[in-house]
């Protein structure tokens, strides 16, 4: 496999859960604690997928998606946003920004893997 996924979340517990699940499914994972750190981590890497939370300090997930899409390197890279709201607005904001899809929190590891497999 060897596919690389970047997971971005300010909650370390959440990051751990995601990393654990993805690694268990055979993916390689890199982590970042907010949007700014994510950009630093991402640049220069060949990422197959980015999974990002929305509400984060310094740079939120929506801005991160916009910034990533502006970089030629990540123009077509699948990006999933983690939303807490099940209502349409956050999904829509994510979509507007260029996100590929979303996962509504709370989610199970199975749901995470299902959704990841849907986009890459």
């Amino acid at each position, binding site marked *: 496999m060897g596919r690389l996924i970047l997971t971005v979340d300010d909650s370390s517990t959440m990051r751990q859960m995601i990393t654990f699940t993805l690694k268990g499914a055979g993916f390689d994972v890199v982590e970042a604690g907010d949007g700014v750190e994510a950009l630093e981590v991402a640049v220069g890497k060949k990422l197959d997928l980015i999974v990002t939370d929305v509400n984060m300090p310094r740079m939120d997930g929506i801005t991160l998606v916009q910034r990533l*899409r502006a970089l030629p390197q990540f*123009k*077509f*890279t*699948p*990006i999933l946003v983690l939303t807490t709201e099940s209502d*349409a*607005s956050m*999904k*829509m904001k994510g*979509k*507007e920004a*260029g*996100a*590929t*899809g*979303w996962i509504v929190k709370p989610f199970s590891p199975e749901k995470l893997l299902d959704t990841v497999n*849907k*986009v*890459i």
Partner: protein
Amino acid sequence: MSDAMAQFRDAFFEEATELADGMEATLLSMDLESVEVEDLHTLFRAAHSIKGNAATFGFPEVAAFTHKLESTLEPVRQGTRPMTPDLRELLLQGVDLIRSHLHHARRGEPLPAKEQQGQETLVALLEADSGAVAPPPPPAQAPPARTVAMKGGRGFSIRFEAPTDAFRRGINLERLFRDLAKLGTLQIWPDLTRISPFEQLDPEDCHLAWDIRLETAHPQIDVDDIFEFVAEGDNLRIQPLAPEGSVPSLGEILQTEAGVSPADIREALSQQKRLGELLVDMGKVKPEAVNKALDQQQKKRNQAEASTVRVATEKIDRLVNLVGELVITQAMLAQASQQSNTMQGEEQMSAALLQLDRQTRELQERVMGIRMVPVEMVFSRFPRMVHELGKQLGKDVELVMEGQSTELDKTFIEMLVDPLTHLVRNAVDHGMEDKAERIQTGKPAMGTIGLRASSRGGHIHIEVKDDGKGLNRDRIYQKALDRGLIQPGSRPSDEELNLLIFEPGFSTVEQVSDLSGRGVGMDVVKQNVRALGGRIEVESQPGRGTLIRLVLPLTLAILDGLTVRVAEETYVFPLASVLESFQTRGGDVQTVKGDREVISLRGEFIPVVRLQRLLAVGSNQEASDRSLLVLVESEGRRAAMAVDELLGQQQVVIKSLETHYRRVEGISGATILGDGRVALILDVPGLMRLEAGAAAVGA
């Protein structure tokens, strides 16, 4: 379509209709000067839900159009586009179109061409009106199919147009087809017609579309799930394939066997003409005849649709419980009857009978309750109507409604629609003065129409009130004289004059408007209300306004009656029309004009009607010193009916005589008494007409 699916569709239509009604109510109640953000969110959510559900349940046209409204609303709720009166009008029209869409979709017909054009115009206006605002943001994601686990069928026919930004969002379309293929057998027809000409082509835009035939036993949610991130309401249409065993359509066979693309089949079908058009083209029938036939068909459909009633589940649950209790009572009775000769058995018997009595009464009430629906069902149309009327007539009108939750028999609701519509129209059109006139007379420029329903001691009152100029009784008097409705020189009371406006062809307006004033309609109000066993009251003060009150019985099916004996027969007077009953003393009843009898009661002469003679039962009652009289009133006229005995008051269940026998003048129906005998229910106005006829013949 499987039954389960059909059920969901019904639920979809009901929910969507409610959502549309909600949108209308929100739009109308909105204060444009200071718009509540929450209202905008409410509007948006409603449009969004209709759209999402429509797409889910396979009504792409509904979804597509609602999507337009939703896109219009998005910048409005974001605060980047103002809610103007014009926009409100457009959105109201939009709501109407949604309703029309739903109406036609429910019958499985396409939107009529005329409305289709209307829709295009409306959409153009909505988009044009948005002015310099940034292009509408990408539409919201249709919610994934509700958690309803639909039973899998044979598969689905899918039309999918990829979102334009699919590539830019990193969507892997290949993955999508791979996932679909995992569900079953796929047949795919790419549709390249949406690709722009080369010089306008943006390689990063996605213009691909596909027609897909998926044979699978998986339920639709699995398919929906695959499209989760790319479904935008109108770009995805999923329709179940016809169930196994049914004869496939020619198009379907050609698709599977000859590889004809669904797009081509759609185009071919769109060129097909309908039966009416073909017949007209052949010169076999006139277009008007076709239209008339279509209208007729529509009416039948409406009737079929109107004959259902929605019942709250708790009402039904209570009934189920009651039936359970009845079964227990029955067991108690059975047991008691076995030991009926013992003391204990007798006690048990009477306890059980008491219980049965209570349960039967409750069962009766609850079953009747099923027919009761809130008057809101009629009222809800009026805010819109008053709004439109006010605009049309250049009047500022406010509608104040009260008591919408008052419950009425469903039949009543249906029969009240026309009368109330007419009364409200009339109030705005004639009752209400022009703005200028109102200001001149020192009234607020904004007129108020009150619509109120309340329940009062066994009756329902529905009032339509305006604060306009009031009835012009002089003119009514003059008009009534001209039409010969009153005798010259007579001096009718204000109340009697007021009621004349309900006479056929009676209108005192010189200038007949489009809306009302033709004198057609007010008599319909009277007819319908009378058919419901109700009456009309009018209060009017010059310069202050008019109040029209419809007094209706609670339900048609049950009647509070006064049972009386006439000769050997039992009859029932509707208690509502009985004023009092009394025994005469010698000399009370006087004979005038040879054979007509009258009685003087508190200074008023009231005709005496001998029911034995009028109904031709028993040997004729002769005027005796001691007669038992029941004083009844109907439409302002009174009569004293002579009976032989008063038996009592009781609720009776009305059975139609017409259905079982035929119409009989003076009798409004029949009922079955406790002892199993049939008693006829007297129709008081009918009896008065009979008596008047008999007197005319006799004279």
